[in-house]
């Protein structure tokens, strides 16, 4: 068994209104100096040893992320 982390983020050129809303709220809460926030998704998968890197890449690109609007990274933690 291994733990695999897939992080999915909106591409830089894609408007991220959720991140902007968070960034906009920070000064109102008294936190200054944060100039930008991007909001994405973090997936944790428990996979058995039969799942190879190629399959994980397919899962990330074909399902967890939409390559039109998002970028992704796949990491094996153990």
């Amino acid at each position: 068994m291994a733990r695999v982390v897939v992080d999915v983020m909106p591409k830089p050129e894609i408007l991220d209104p959720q991140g902007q809303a968070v960034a906009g709220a920070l000064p109102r809460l008294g936190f200054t100096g944060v100039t930008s926030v991007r909001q994405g998704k973090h997936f944790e998968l428990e996979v058995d040893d039969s799942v190879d890197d190629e399959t994980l890449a397919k899962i990330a690109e074909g399902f967890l992320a939409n390559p039109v609007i998002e970028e992704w990274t796949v990491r094996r933690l153990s």
Partner: protein
Amino acid sequence: MKIGVITFPGTLDDVDAARAARYIDAEAVNLWHADEDLHGVDAVIVPGGFSYGDYLRCGAIARFAPVMSSVIDAAKGGMPVLGICNGFQILCEAGLLPGALVRNKKLHFVCRDQWLRVENNTTAWTTRYEAGAEVLVPLKSGEGGYVADQSTLDELEGEGRVVFRYVGENPNGSRDDIAGICSANGRVVGLMPHPEHAIDALTGPSDDGLGVFLSVVDSLVSA
């Protein structure tokens, strides 16, 4: 003439889509998400709602439903397919239409009657409209911002594949005010606003949406 209407768990607008099909004297055939059989339909409507709760991304899970593999094959063979709202998102996720739909620019769910301009009246779903006609139909969506990379947008514009455009204030931040697009052959159309909610002035803001459904009957008869 049989028009199939897909129901996924979480679909909301299948009843109105089926009603629109019956309204123009077509037979509405209910298609279940888990069934690969299209039951001999001549066209398919992928209606609005929140398929599978829209978890992950809008339309991302529905795109892998058994019925969708049959719809994708049929669409590639030339069957007219219409995706409305969540259906548009599903068709983009499925790769039948380019681009993606993202969260509305102002983050608010938008629910209002919306004027649209018919930019292309040669698709399977728009022949009953005059080019440049302005129609009033409901819009109700939280993730209706159409995005695609610049080369895709240039291609859509260059080939006349922007089918509907928002008139007046852009409700969701869609690139180039795009409300609906079509496939290269004009048989697959996706749009965010809801023509199926505007088929009778008794229950909608107009009957302007009826042209979408009458058009597909025409294109099936002439095919």
